[in-house]
């Protein structure tokens, strides 16, 4: 255990004293400040039709020429994860330090565990610092006061964001185990991120339309199945899963994920969901996100343990 602690401490020191994490922090602070500025500028429009949960709108409203904070985090989260993990193991190998550590009296898994957990720690610190920054500056700039429920929603949102980043961290650690060069690992991670973020929806649409065509005689009957399949495929992508969950937790007026039929909707009372109900709605998303992170790390772990360590 002492080996793990020593390694974990060293990894954390490396992260927090390194240029990389410093740059990520700077980038994210700039992005947060800009998106907050944009959100404040457009806030009056955003709350024109509802005057409740205004504070959450600071996170979700986009400015005139800038995305909202939630969109940014959804976009940059993977970059943070990939940046923190892509050279975790292969760099140790090329440096010749891996074999030296491995020949110390520690279990081999302590190495990869320490690396992953140190990365996770940085991610959690980063997301919560950014969230706190956004909240704090938002309070000062607008004079709005978040209620307890809004706090709760922001907290869950940040937690979920951190887990989302950890998914990408786990993936990039996996690539750092199987790729010999850090550059290869980084490119692999980024290409998967690009595919899942940009092209997954196109792919999902294409597949759904091929299986349940929306033209010809069956079009009407296929509509529901087509949509369900499309959404199911889209949810493979952590980005989609994340965006969907964020839209629910940060907007109490959205009441469902996916399709609602007219019959289900009739007689519904127009009101906000309580935080408990919102969480209930995105609980599967949370669990799935957590599971993806765990599974990806498990694969990386197994690969690492089976790998031969040579100088």
């Amino acid at each position, binding site marked *: 255990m*002492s080996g793990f602690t*020593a390694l974990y401490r060293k990894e954390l020191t*490396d992260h927090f004293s390194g240029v990389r994490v410093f740059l990520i922090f700077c980038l994210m602070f700039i992005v947060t400040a800009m998106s907050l500025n944009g959100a404040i500028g457009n806030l009056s429009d955003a709350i024109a039709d509802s005057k409740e949960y205004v504070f959450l709108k600071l996170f979700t409203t986009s400015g005139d020429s800038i995305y909202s904070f939630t969109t940014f985090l959804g976009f940059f989260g993977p970059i943070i994860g990939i940046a923190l993990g892509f050279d975790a193991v292969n760099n140790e190998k090329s440096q010749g330090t891996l074999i*030296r550590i491995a020949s*110390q*009296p*520690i*279990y081999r898994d302590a190495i990869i565990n320490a690396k992953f957990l140190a990365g996770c720690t940085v991610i959690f610190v980063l997301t919560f610092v950014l969230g706190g920054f956004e909240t704090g500056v938002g309070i000062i700039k607008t004079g709005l006061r978040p209620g307890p429920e809004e706090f709760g929603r922001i907290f869950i949102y940040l937690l979920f964001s951190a887990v989302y980043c950890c998914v990408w961290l786990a993936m990039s650690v996996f690539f750092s185990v199987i790729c010999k060069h850090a550059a290869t690992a980084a490119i692999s991670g980024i290409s998967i991120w690009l595919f899942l973020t940009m092209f997954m929806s196109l792919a999902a649409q294409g597949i759904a339309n091929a299986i349940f065509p929306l033209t010809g005689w069956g079009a009407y009957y296929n509509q529901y199945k087509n949509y369900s399949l499309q959404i199911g495929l889209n949810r493979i992508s952590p980005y989609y899963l994340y965006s969907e969950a964020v839209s629910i937790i940060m907007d109490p007026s959205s009441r469902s994920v996916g399709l609602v039929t007219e019959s289900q909707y009739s007689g519904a009372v127009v009101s906000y969901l309580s935080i408990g109900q919102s969480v209930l709605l995105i609980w599967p998303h949370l669990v799935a996100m957590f599971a993806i992170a765990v599974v990806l790390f498990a694969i990386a772990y197994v690969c690492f343990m089976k790998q031969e360590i040579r*100088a």
Partner: protein
Amino acid sequence: MSETIIQTFGLTKDYGEVKAVDTLDLTIQRGEIFGLLGPNGAGKTTTTLMLLGLTDPTSGHAVIEGHDCTKDPLDVKKIVGYLPDNVGFYPDMTGRQNLIFTGQMNSLDKETCESRSKELLERVGMTYAADRKAGTYSRGMRQRLGIADVLMKDPEIIIMDEPTLGIDPEGMRELTKLIRDLAVKDGRTILLSSHQLYQVQEICDRVGIFVEGKLIACGRIDELGRQLQSEGLFLMDLQVEQNSDPLVKLLSAKEGVTKVTKNDNGSLHIESTRDLRKEMISFLMMNNYTLLDMHQRGGDLEEIYRRYFEKAGEEIDAAGKNSEAGSAGNDGRGKGTKQTWRERRANRRKNNPGV
């Protein structure tokens, strides 16, 4: 003194078709310096990795001080220090920090880490660069820091992989002395692998010669030399003032001589089945040659190494095709002593495309 500390039983490692280590039975006593000799890719590193439990053997097992290296690697790694070939350090940490980090991984407390790292940096002569980033170190400095790093855990056994590679002559002398001190003064057991014969000869008490995963000879260097002689192999180098070309033919015809080759510097290398020194002088005098230099060889490791290599090569070849074994001796082609058995084999293959 003769207490077994490392022992392997039929240790084997396959990489697919290739046997990196083939049923190795090795015994190392406490306090001795053992040299594993062999060309690149002979399986030396694989053997050391199996001893540390970093690689699982395909079959067989190894025991260090009663701990099984595969099942109980943690206890093994507590008492064994490993200096890998081309050791690496964290470039952003200073030499001292790197050592302290190793100490922490060995569960040493803070004071011990600091005092021991200071002491060891002095011992390896690295105090002057202790607070520089390890990324700026030269190879020789890394090697020295590597030795300090190994000693951080105060190991009973030290395994070194090619410790002398890439070190200048001055550094080499210090290193040799340091390694001897580690064994003699501190009473540690040292297992080092190398393909640099001269250093091994200087440092090691016993050597094992490794070819293609097999340990083909093992023992004290003088023992190995005697063993060769007892098998009827005497080696001699001699130099004459005159043109030695006609002498090659003359000597080849002499009774007892099995092989005569010309070395690069013009001297002749003679292999014979008995000690020819006395006869040789009168023989040369009779034939009007002026003897400049003559000495018996066999005691030095290079010769032993080369002979064992050739033997191993012949055995491997003989296993492949028996009829080839006979021509091995006459196929030196005057290339001198530097020719390895691999080259010989390649030559033979070229000349006999049927093989």
